[in-house]
């Protein structure tokens, strides 16, 4: 029961009994509570006129790094004897330092500052309203207000360490880079031999072949090395998100995507990101550190979701990727995916699949049960068949057991195979 109601009922009771009993003493005893209510009434807060500003020391931060939130409330109205300011933390953020509530006095024209530090896992966090309750000193009358102070915090994903991922798309771009361009010219790796042309460096002349022909000279050609277009496709279909003990396999996919984006951009490639699942969230192609930031922001916003249209990979919009470029799909994969991936390969895209293993991810909880062991074995067989289908179609697959380091898995799968072989098939 509210205090005011309780006090009012007590006062009524005193007065009614006093008048019916014709007791002046009871009337006198009712005076202190009446004065109490009257004093509270005279000081009850007027319409709240508050100005609120929320500032974050950064709006974009790496995972688990602290962010300081400062809320300043200025009183543009009359004196407030008691004020309670409370801010709601977006779900997923945890408080590291300070408090999200603050009480105190707020005289007219003065400010109250609430400061706290939060940290969180990858994601987008929207700070919304701030709740304010103002009361008079006795706490009987109060006014509430919900002040808008929106701000968005992006927590970028953890970027796993990765040195280099060898790729070999059919088409490269015009700028020099580390990717073999399937065209002769200046480079490091031997490409072929052609007839000598004036202007060719003398040290490139292949004397052994030239010695076999009396009238012509031959020079070595090297494979040109260029940058390429790389399209990263992150599978965000909810059906492919597995959750065990509050941990999500999708988070591993995101980390892998961030690592791959970093390594491809470091090599000077033009990289684009498509988050496929809830809808299409596309990051425009670009180069360098700015693009890295854009992709990390895109990954910070990535969420799994359901969509009837994007339930399968059939509606993957290939127009978003340069023709004959390198596509990297990061997905735990499902049964019907290999058909679409084979189709993409037949259209000239060079494919690479990085697949966090959902069976090993989930088997941690089932390992103790006898029936669970059988189920895990069956699921592993099913997955092995799925991956074999892809490999047979000439699509390299990095089968990533998320308990292992990503870098180690990537190099074990595609790091050691020769380039000419890598373009055709990769065995893990």
């Amino acid at each position, binding site marked *: 029961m509210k205090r005011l109601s309780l006090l009012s009922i007590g006062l009524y009771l005193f007065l009614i009994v006093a008048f019916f009993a014709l007791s002046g003493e009871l009337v006198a005893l009712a005076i202190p509570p009446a004065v109490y209510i009257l004093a509270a009434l005279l000081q*009850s807060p007027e319409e709240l006129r508050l100005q609120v500003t929320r500032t974050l020391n950064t709006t974009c931060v790496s995972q688990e790094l602290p962010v300081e939130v400062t809320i300043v409330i200025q009183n543009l109205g009359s004196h407030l004897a008691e004020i309670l300011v409370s801010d709601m933390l977006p779900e997923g953020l945890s408080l590291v330092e300070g408090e999200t509530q603050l009480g105190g006095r707020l005289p007219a024209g003065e400010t109250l500052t609430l400061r706290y530090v939060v940290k969180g896992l990858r994601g987008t966090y929207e700070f919304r309203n701030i709740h304010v309750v103002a009361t008079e000193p006795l706490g009987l009358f109060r006014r509430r207000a919900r002040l808008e102070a929106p701000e968005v915090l992006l927590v970028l994903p953890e970027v796993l360490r990765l040195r280099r991922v060898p790729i070999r798309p059919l088409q490269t771009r015009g700028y020099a880079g580390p990717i073999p361009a399937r065209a002769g010219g200046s480079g490091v790796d031997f490409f072929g031999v052609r007839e000598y042309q004036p202007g060719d460096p003398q040290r490139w002349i292949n004397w052994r072949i030239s010695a076999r022909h009396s009238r012509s000279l031959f020079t070595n050609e090297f494979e040109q090395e260029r940058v390429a277009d790389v399209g990263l496709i992150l599978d965000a279909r909810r059906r492919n998100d597995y959750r065990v003990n509050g941990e999500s396999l999708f988070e591993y996919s995101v980390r892998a995507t961030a690592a791959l984006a970093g390594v491809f951009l470091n090599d000077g490639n033009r990289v684009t990101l498509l988050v496929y699942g809830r809808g299409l969230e596309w990051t425009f192609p670009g180069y360098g550190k700015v693009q890295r930031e854009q992709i990390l922001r895109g990954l910070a916003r990535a969420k799994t979701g359901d969509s009837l249209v994007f339930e399968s990979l059939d509606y993957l919009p290939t127009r978003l990727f340069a023709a004959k470029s390198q596509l990297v799909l990061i997905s735990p994969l499902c049964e019907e995916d290999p058909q679409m991936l084979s189709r993409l390969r037949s259209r000239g895209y060079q494919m690479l699949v990085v697949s966090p293993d959902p069976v090993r991810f989930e088997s941690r909880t089932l390992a103790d049960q006898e029936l669970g062991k059988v189920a895990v074995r069956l699921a592993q067989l099913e997955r092995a068949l799925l991956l074999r289908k892809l490999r047979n179609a000439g699509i390299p697959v990095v089968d990533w057991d998320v308990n292992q380091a990503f870098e180690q898995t990537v190099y074990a799968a595609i790091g050691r195979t020769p380039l000419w072989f890598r373009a055709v098939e990769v065995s893990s």
Partner: protein
Amino acid sequence: MKWTPRLLPYCIALAAGTPLAAYALSGRTGQVLILLALGVWWLVGVYRKQPSLGNLCATGILLMVMIGALSDLPSGWLLVGTLALLAAWDMEHFYHRCHLVARIEASDDLERRHLGQLALILGIGAILAGLSLGVHLRLNFAVAVLLTLLAALGLRRLLSRLRRQSD
């Protein structure tokens, strides 16, 4: 916050103790025991941080004060009891309100101002109540009923308006 938790048990003791003393002086053991139980119960509620228990005990003591006034117990004792009751009830809620908030800026200053305000209100209440105890008016039953109705209606209107404003 130093003073409120220190003063609160004394106020509760005074709130229950003065009507208890008045009842004890007139030799009514039953009521003495009831008041003692209410006082102890309230103190337990304070230590357990249960203000609802305080509400219940304060209501009980108030009813005992009312019965005491109707039973011609000494008004001075009852007035002191009412004032102490109001102080204890207010302080308990203030203490609870402050404890619900994670951090209070300048809490000592806030407490000092609150206690000052409360003392002033209780002082005015005590003076007015003391003065009115000395005033004797002769009213017949019809006038008393009329006054009661007027007071009740007036209070009802006032409180409903205040509640609307407060919401």
